[in-house]
């Protein structure tokens, strides 16, 4: 059986250069729902990361039936297909590496159903993450996964990348909040996995689909859990003299038997930069801060807040502040959530990594990152989900300096290799995408990867869906053959 899927076939069109295909797309989705002029297509060559590649056409379906027809057409014409939400991703998941067709979901953005009794919502993939929470706020409900890009990123994209966010520490990542999906397969078939029930029977197809990065099917409707807003939330800011002190505090908090809803770290350099944008009152002279959020029943939260303060002070915190109201809390979070992009103030570009280490290894990995920065003469800021050991080293660079960029890539690989050595992994929430596929073979054996690729090929045997993602390049025999287009790095400017 292994042999069967190793022979995946065919040349995929680099561009949708068959006028017939574009005409057909217009018939399916509408005249104003297809882009094929170069000046428009260039706007679909990037995401929030650093790679780019231009598609041959972009189509904006408005319903599942259209997606099904588009998939049938693409498969028949052997055109590569990449789904795209808001392109806020950082791993190149929505980049059309081989040209082909981008299916953009900006016009499939309706909330189809809110089921208050069962605490579920059914949404189209283009719904913006935060919009769902805003939509159900008056019911005392919210959607828990909260990536920093939640003001713009789409739930379809969250499903593809299995996105996380600061509050994954307590609530888990997207897969823990999706109970059902409607999926269009490459054949155009529309299938439904899961539903509103909390647990699915048989194979957990929903779980498999979430995080598959658009390589097994196109999700067209998603059933998600809505959580009840907690009775009480306490947000604390622990201020430390050094990154080391803060890092050691992370495991001390969990060792004390407390699971915060969120436990985030920002290093001193990053604090400085972020403060200029958000004026959250972050201390400018601190070595690092921990942003700690507790939620639950009033009494429990108050008890935990006292305990967390004690742990922090015992671990040499200079001070521990508590947000006195919702406004102050929002400000502290604004600083955290906008932190990545706020770096645009001091650098033309940055490269973000997404490595994961066991919590206890945070002090070691932070020291390692410090050494790597010195070794390669780079500035590396750190803002990350300390509670689940999900690092986000942000390496600053200027794309006009090619030599520097080489150093950035080497530094980044060295950091991820260290994560693997520590018993961690290469991605916590951004996905593998184009970014980290070459590192997959360090995490998995050939046999492991064979099974995964086999699984993908059971759905996507011809390889039309999101080619050149997740799996390493040298395995070309198993990947799609044919001319490969080297994705261009982002050039000057964006």
């Amino acid at each position, binding site marked *: 059986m292994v042999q069967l899927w190793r022979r995946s076939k065919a040349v995929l069109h680099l561009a949708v250069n068959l006028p017939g295909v574009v005409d057909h797309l217009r018939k399916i989705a509408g005249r104003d729902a297809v882009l094929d002029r170069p000046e428009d297509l260039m706007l679909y060559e990037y995401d929030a990361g650093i790679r780019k590649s231009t598609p041959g056409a972009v189509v904006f379906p408005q319903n599942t039936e259209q997606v099904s027809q588009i998939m049938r057409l693409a498969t028949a014409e052997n055109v590569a297909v990449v789904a795209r939400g808001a392109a806020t991703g950082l791993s190149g998941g929505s980049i059309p590496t081989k040209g082909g067709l981008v299916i953009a979901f*900006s016009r499939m953005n309706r909330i189809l159903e809110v089921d208050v009794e069962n605490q579920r919502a059914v949404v189209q993939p283009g719904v913006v993450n935060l919009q769902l929470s805003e939509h159900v706020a008056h019911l005392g409900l919210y959607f828990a996964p909260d990536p920093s890009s939640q003001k713009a990123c789409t739930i379809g994209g969250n499903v593809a990348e299995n996105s996380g966010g600061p509050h994954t520490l307590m609530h888990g990542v997207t897969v823990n909040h999706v109970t059902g999906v409607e999926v269009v397969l490459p054949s155009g078939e529309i299938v439904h996995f899961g539903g509103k029930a909390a647990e699915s029977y048989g194979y957990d197809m929903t779980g498999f689909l979430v995080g598959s990065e658009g390589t097994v099917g196109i999700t067209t409707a998603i059933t998600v859990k809505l959580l009840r807003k907690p009775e009480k939330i306490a947000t604390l800011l622990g201020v430390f003299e050094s990154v080391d002190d803060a890092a050691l505090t992370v495991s001390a908090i969990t060792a004390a038997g407390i699971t915060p809803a969120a436990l985030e770290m920002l290093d001193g350099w990053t604090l400085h930069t972020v403060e200029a944008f958000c004026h959250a009152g972050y201390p400018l002279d601190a070595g690092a801060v921990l942003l700690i959020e507790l939620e639950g029943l009033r009494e429990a939260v108050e008890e935990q807040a006292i305990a967390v303060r004690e742990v922090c002070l015992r671990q040499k915190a200079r001070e521990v502040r508590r947000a006195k109201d919702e406004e102050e809390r929002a400000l502290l979070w604004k600083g955290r959530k906008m932190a990545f992009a706020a770096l645009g103030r001091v650098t033309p570009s940055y490269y973000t990594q997404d490595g994961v280490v066991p919590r206890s290894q945070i002090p070691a990995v932070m020291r390692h990152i410090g050494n790597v920065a010195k070794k390669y003469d780079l500035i590396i800021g750190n803002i990350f989900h300390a509670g689940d050991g999900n690092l986000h080293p942000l390496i600053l660079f200027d794309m006009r300096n090619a030599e520097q960029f080489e150093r950035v890539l080497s530094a980044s690989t060295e950091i991820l290799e260290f994560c693997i050595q520590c018993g961690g992994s290469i991605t916590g929430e951004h996905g593998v995408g184009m970014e980290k596929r070459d590192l997959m073979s360090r995490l998995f054996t050939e046999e492991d990867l064979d099974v995964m690729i086999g699984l993908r090929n059971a759905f996507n045997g011809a390889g039309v869906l999101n080619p050149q993602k997740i799996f390493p390049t040298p395995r070309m025999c198993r990947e799609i053959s044919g001319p490969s287009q080297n994705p261009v790095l982002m*050039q000057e400017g964006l």
Partner: protein
Amino acid sequence: MAEKPVSNFSSGEKPTWDLYSKCVHCGLCLDQCPTYRALGTEMDSPRGRIYQMVLVDQGRLALSDSFVTHIDRCLGCMNCQTACPSGVPYGSLLERARSQIEENYPRSWLQRQVRSHFYGKVLPSFGSLARNARLVRFYQRSGLQSLARGSGLLKLLGVADLDALSPRMESEFSFADLGRVYPAEGTQRGRVALLIGCIGSVAFAELNRATIRVLTRNGIEVHIPKSQSCCGALHLHAGYLEQSRTMARHNIDAMLKPEFDAIVTNAAGCGSTMKEYAALLEHDAEYAERAQQFVVKVRDISEYLAQVGLVEPARKLKARVTYQDPCHLAHAQGIRSAPRQLLKFIGAEVVESPRADSCCGSAGVYNVTQNEISMKILDEKMEDIASVMPEIVATANVGCMLQLSVGAKRKGLNSRVVHVVELLDEAYY
């Protein structure tokens, strides 16, 4: 890396690396952009517009139809600038891109005629503005408008929506007030110069009079400096940088006097532009310093009144009011709480609608030049407003008032659309 690319912008004022490289294309602006929400295309998002500027500057994209279309479609509402964590100076990128378009892109003959007549002849002088406004007033009052509307002619010509958007010309323009001084009532607490505005003077003269009444009632002496001109906002936003500089110099000469505590306007767009004078005249040896002094004194009417504090109104306003932030007040000037404070002070029950600070689609002349998109944006806005069932929709800019009135009509909403100052005026008299 690659050899130095050849820019498709001409030399002079253009979007430069220093400005656009601040964008890290994170996409956090997307859902805050009204045109992206309405159209769903990256070309019509802030990130996409900046990227198009980069492409033109790098020689990958021509300064041609496609670029112009998407830059023209930008409302200039600055919602994106509020959302941007990187501090991209989007407003100045946009002004520069538009200035490049004016310089290098041949618009159609008709567009050129209309634009040069409107920006070159009508607006710059109050005299010609008054003459043109009288013509419009004649059309509106003589029965011609009713005739045109009734006959279906406007619909036939496809301009019915535009006709509905044109402001009703007032019987008495504010120009008659030029040079006048209105003394403070009671104890004098301040002295200000009031900008009467170009469109404001012909279509919102009554609002200007209400502004004067509210100020004087609050102990403020109001001067209407005689030689003031249009603030230059419409020119600036259309890419006529030089003309807007001329107007800026004119207003600095007319209104920068030591005896004025503040230079006040009741139009958010004018206030925002006047606060930009320092940046606009940064390289003008003669005016740079005075422009800075001028900017320090510019106040939106709500900002000024909240600062000096209102005197007790004659009666409380018992009404359910939703306040819609004008983009050029909330996003360009960062003024959000002052107008709400004033409304609460006079007794209004202020209810917040979703996305109150999102653009209504008016954006200067946008609702005329990009009518279809503007109406799409407006209809979305009216959904949000209707969801809180207000008796009154209050805003703080004349353009927004016009647009929201049209929106209320389209939505079949009975709410009255007013300027915050008009409500204050009612509370005092």
